[in-house]
């Protein structure tokens, strides 16, 4: 019997291929619930989930909230503007205070890479799910991206996946690289030299390309990353116009990829910067499908961590 042996899901790097497959296959069955007239099952009845978001998020936070509620869990949202961290409380103290309220799962987004490992050690009786930590990982996004690719191609093994944009600051890229490498895909990354970390090949089955053309040529999947203006400011590129010229996806360079290639984006999209509106609204884009799969994937994550044994 396949089972999931982790209390937490912090990084796809920590999971085996079989565990990733189990999460994806559970998500596939969870989708059925989302298409019912009554979108609720009693599985996590009486469990408490805390959404602890130190960074702004609408999509991920809402997606986790819907996922928890469809499994009948009780969910509380805590965001920095209303939390004690603005009053100077440390993450450790926040964790212990939350623990005293006996939650079952804490879903956290934090700007510090690795904050979840720190939190997990202090919360032996509570599961921790990473909803994004700094520039480290964003496992739910990686899983939903893989599920969306699997929907389209029926497999992940042997796919050529191009990831274009700010690789250095992208936890989405890191989770995809970790997950896709385990599933047997080949990842080609491209971006301005200031945005591609040296040694990126060491993260997995990755080839670093100097031009966007090289990365997306014959690709099955073209994944465009968001230019994170809140993170890198204006220092890493001269202008968004110049970025769009060299690393933006448009109907012309999309033709370099395979004719049936799928286009993905973790959102929110800067239209006209990393992607032209023609591509965003075109029939090769699977962006809304990604969002739809996000709820199912997060239901699978919540379901499996509750059954997991402490490591």
């Amino acid at each position, binding site marked *: *019997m*396949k*089972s*999931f042996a982790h209390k937490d899901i912090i990084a796809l790097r920590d999971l085996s291929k079989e565990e990733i497959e*189990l999460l994806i*296959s*559970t998500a596939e*069955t*969870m989708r*059925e*619930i989302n298409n*019912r*007239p*009554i979108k*609720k*099952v*009693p*599985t996590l009845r009486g469990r408490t989930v805390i959404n602890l978001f130190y960074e702004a998020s609408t999509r991920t936070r809402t997606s986790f909230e819907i996922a928890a509620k469809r*499994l009948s869990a009780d969910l509380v949202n805590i965001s920095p503007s209303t939390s004690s961290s603005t009053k100077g409380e440390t993450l450790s103290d926040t964790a212990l205070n939350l623990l005293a309220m006996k939650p079952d799962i804490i879903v956290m987004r934090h700007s510090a890479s690795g904050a979840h490992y720190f939190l997990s050690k202090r919360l032996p009786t509570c599961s921790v799910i990473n909803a994004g930590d700094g520039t480290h990982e964003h496992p739910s996004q990686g899983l939903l991206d893989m599920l969306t690719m699997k929907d389209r191609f029926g497999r992940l093994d042997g796919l050529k996946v191009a990831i274009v944009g700010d690789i250095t600051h992208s936890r989405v890229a890191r989770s995809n690289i970790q997950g896709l490498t385990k599933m047997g895909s080949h990842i080609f990354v491209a971006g301005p030299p200031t945005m591609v970390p040296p040694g990126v090949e060491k993260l997995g089955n990755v080839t670093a390309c100097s031009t966007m053309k090289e990365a997306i040529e014959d690709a099955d999947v073209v994944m465009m990353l968001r230019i994170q203006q809140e993170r890198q400011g204006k220092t890493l590129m001269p202008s968004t116009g110049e970025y769009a010229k060299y690393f933006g996806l448009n109907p012309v360079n999309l033709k370099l990829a395979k004719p049936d290639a799928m286009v993905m984006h973790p959102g929110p999209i800067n239209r006209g910067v990393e992607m032209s509106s023609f591509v965003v609204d075109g029939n090769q884009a699977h962006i809304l499908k990604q969002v739809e799969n996000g709820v199912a994937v997060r239901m699978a994550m919540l*379901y*499996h961590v*509750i*059954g*997991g044994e402490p490591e």
Partner: protein
Amino acid sequence: MSEESTVILDGTGIERALTRIAHEILEKNKGVENLSLVGIRTGGVYLAKELAKRLEGIEGATVQVGEVDITLYRDDYKGQSLNMPVGKTDFPFTVEGKKVVLFDDVLYTGRTIRAAMDAIMDHGRPACIQLAVLIDRGHRELPIRADFVGRNVPTSIKESIAVRFDDQQKPIEVVLEK
């Protein structure tokens, strides 16, 4: 696994039991109009499909078979069950207003049936739910009773009962293990 196992129902016996249940279902419901079968994964689904073939053979009308996975509806999460792979729940019909015959291979505590009924009712309000089982082994923990029973088998709690299927998902035999 076990020291002693006895075949309590062979292939022919199962065939006969299913044929009799088919006739009983038709008698009680006066035909197959508005009737659908739902099997509990996985054994119940195989048996429901066998039963549908018989109903169609007798009445000459198609009977649809749905399948229900009860993993998300179990009442023993704190034990081993949560974290089990979740199977597919699939109704090729709307449950609303249907006469549903729920099929499971072995009726034991009744907890599986309770979970399956909750799962069905989350998809709509059926006109009624009837229960058919191949084996009723007793030891109920909930007030649940089968409408159609293949064979009543008094057992001890220490024993276990398994319905075995071949590669084509056809039932071969029912085995009692001590």
